[in-house]
């Protein structure tokens, strides 16, 4: 008998609000891990979750696999280091929208640019939830929160578009309510050899309840024959929804873009392993400095 979802649970007491979209992401991740292990595609001990700080980050405590619970905005750089250290590991960064698109945006862009073989899953609730509801880079203009009682003054950033132009080799969007679809995307991302990015629309029941907004708008790109090998088509689909508000009609989810490129660690390591190797003699180097 294979692993089940429960086999990935920990004793940590869950402190997400009832109705939080994070539950969907947690379930999807556990199911994806269980299925991938059961299918013999990955090994459980090789899974490493790296998380940022925010409500999303708590997922590190809730899933019983290796984890590195990092700083706010700083999950992705350690994830890159982990992958370089041991390319056998399946490295997934579970990050927040404030976390990886605000505080630590540079690491997200550069990991995509390098095509590190890893997965980034954004718990995109479009709000700083753990700090009680301020606007983030993906909040709609006019978002009212503790710091913007008159509405956020900025236009949102479109992470899908950003990742497409940054060099990510798998770019997708999920909706945490669609458990099966999210799980399948996570599986695909883990198996993808290269940088995979999934922006998961994750309603924050407490500070930005978007269930009613997303429900009627989301549709699956893969059901409408989108050609994910075509970057221009992907960009066009990315721009169909700019993380705005009521005016938007349809919100595509699924795979926007997928391609193959050499990975960063393959290039940088060139077959070397950092975890073994003898200590070299330095006598020749010293000889040359005389």
């Amino acid at each position: 008998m294979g692993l089940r979802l429960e086999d990935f649970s920990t004793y940590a007491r869950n402190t997400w609000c009832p109705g939080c979209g994070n539950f969907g992401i947690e379930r999807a991740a556990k199911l994806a891990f269980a299925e991938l292990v059961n299918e013999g595609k990955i090994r459980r001990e090789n899974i490493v979750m790296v998380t940022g700080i925010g409500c999303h980050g708590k997922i590190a405590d809730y899933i019983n696999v290796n984890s590195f619970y990092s700083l706010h905005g700083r999950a992705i750089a350690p994830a890159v280091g982990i992958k370089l250290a041991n390319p056998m590991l399946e490295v997934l960064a579970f990050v927040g929208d404030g976390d990886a698109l605000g505080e630590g945006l540079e690491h997200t862009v550069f990991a995509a640019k390098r095509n590190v073989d890893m997965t980034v899953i954004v718990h995109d609730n479009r709000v700083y939830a753990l700090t009680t509801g301020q606007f983030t880079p993906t909040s709609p203009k006019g978002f009212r929160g503790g710091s913007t009682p008159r509405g956020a003054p900025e236009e949102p950033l479109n992470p899908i578009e950003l990742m497409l132009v940054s060099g990510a080799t798998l770019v997708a969007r999920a909706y945490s309510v669609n458990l099966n679809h999210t799980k399948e995307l996570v599986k695909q991302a883990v198996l993808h050899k290269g940088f995979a990015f999934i922006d998961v629309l994750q309603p924050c029941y407490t500070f930005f309840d978007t269930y009613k907004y997303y429900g009627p708008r989301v549709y699956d790109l893969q059901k409408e024959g989108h050609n994910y090998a075509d970057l221009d088509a992907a960009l066009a689909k990315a721009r169909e929804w700019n993380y705005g508000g009521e005016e938007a009609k349809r919100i595509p989810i699924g795979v926007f873009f997928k391609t193959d490129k050499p990975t960063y660690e393959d290039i940088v390591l060139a077959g070397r392993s950092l975890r073994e190797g003898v200590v070299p003699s330095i006598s020749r180097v010293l000889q040359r400095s005389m």
Partner: protein
Amino acid sequence: MAQEYSVLIGGQAGDGIRLAGSSVARLFNRLGYWVFAYNDYQSLIRGGHNFTVVRASGKRVQAHRNTVDIMVAFNQETVEKHGWRLKEDSLVIFDSDNVKAEGLGLPLSETARKRNLPLIVRNTAALGALASTLGLEFHLVEEVVRSTVRRSVEENIAVAKEGYDMAKGYRGFTQVHAVNNPPRPILSGNEAIGLGAVKAGLKLYVAYPMTPSTPLLHYLAGNADELGVTVVQPENEIAVIGMAEGAAYAGVRTMVGTSGGGFCLMVEHLSLAGQAEIPVVIMLGERPGPAIGLPTYHAQGELFFPIFAGHGEFPRIVVSPGDPEEAFYLSAEALNLAWRFQVPVILVADYSLLESSFSSFLDEDKVLVENPKLWTGGGEYKRYLLTGDGVSPLAFPGTVGVTVKANSYEHDEYGITTEDPVLTMRNAEKRLAKSRTIEDELRKRETVKTYGNMQADTVLVTWGSTKGAVVEVAEEHDFGVLQPLYLNPLPVWEIEKHFSGKKNIVCVEANSTGQLARWIRFHGFRVDRTILKYDGRALTVDELEEKIREAGV
């Protein structure tokens, strides 16, 4: 007094002054001299004024003097700026194609121009001329050229020979005799730090360029295959340390290098290393601040910064080598201690240590990769197992049956987040226990160095490369010298021993506030006075003599 010679080479950025200085140092090295080469350059790529002072002596020297015996001037500015360094019998060798001066003018530029070689090749003509005035055999010049020049080697040798012959009227002007010593490697602090870390198992070096740590980045990248190390340059210093911590978590010995500004950006991650117990070595190169300050100059302004950087309370080790030999052993020790205790170790190194070159003898067999406390199986793995010494066994992701949970929140033994008051206190105590374990270990190791006459009433206390001038002057005055190699924890057990009965305790350092003096006083000791230097230049022997006289020490 031992025979000694000082040669200054000056020109513009782009003239290859540093390389020329290195060739001169190699020349003396082949004659058995101890050499020290101080590089003074500006933060620009072309133009400006660069110079190198090479001091060679029959005894070990690790600082330069103000005066020089020979000046090699590639431009007029060199003559104008450094005229004051000349003595009665000093000689100026200059490029008569663009410099007017008294002395030995030679058409150095022309030697390169007429062969259609880049202007920089005139350096080899100057080297030949210098060797001639020192009364040396030409084969020495040829050997040096072959060891330093990569392209157009034969042409360079021909140019050197031309310079050598052109100067024959001054042959033996300052006759140098070989001393009976084998040549030694000439290393900068940057190079020695890289080599030491490699001998302690370094596999990954991560850095973003910033003077004076950039040469370490280049050195390890340039010798990556031979040294078995992978070098990575990420988007900024936050990523640098983040990547390093990720790699260390996954079991790889990692070091990062930066200078003050970059270290500022790393500070939050430093605290993470403290909380999550991640071994990482940070090479912190010092240059004058605040802010961008003087990018390519010298200071020791970062003693308190590495000791106190980071929020919260956590154990850390701060080491401070004073020459490349110490840099080699301490860099290795830093990596070993980081892994044994799963703590951040900061290696502070000042500009002059990092960017000057010193005759050095490194015994690579003296460095071992010390084993960390590894998990040996049996029972359930707990990343943060509470132990008496505060050190939990390490395991790495990828180990069957093991879940490794590193956590920047306060956590339980498994690494799961907690806000429990009892666990919070227990973890703080775990960190305190670790601090004590570290101190116990350091008591068994060499944590200070002493020089000169430690029975004397006066002891000069110093850190970093300032010890070069301090040791030399102390020996002349029959003073003692105490140099802490460890700044945190400060080896109070040694200080206590060496300060006892001293009448006059003087701290010498390159900053304006006397940070070492304050730090020592903070630990309850007396420091009678400070001699401080903060003009961005390394202390010279003559300058220290003068300051000691002025201070009436």
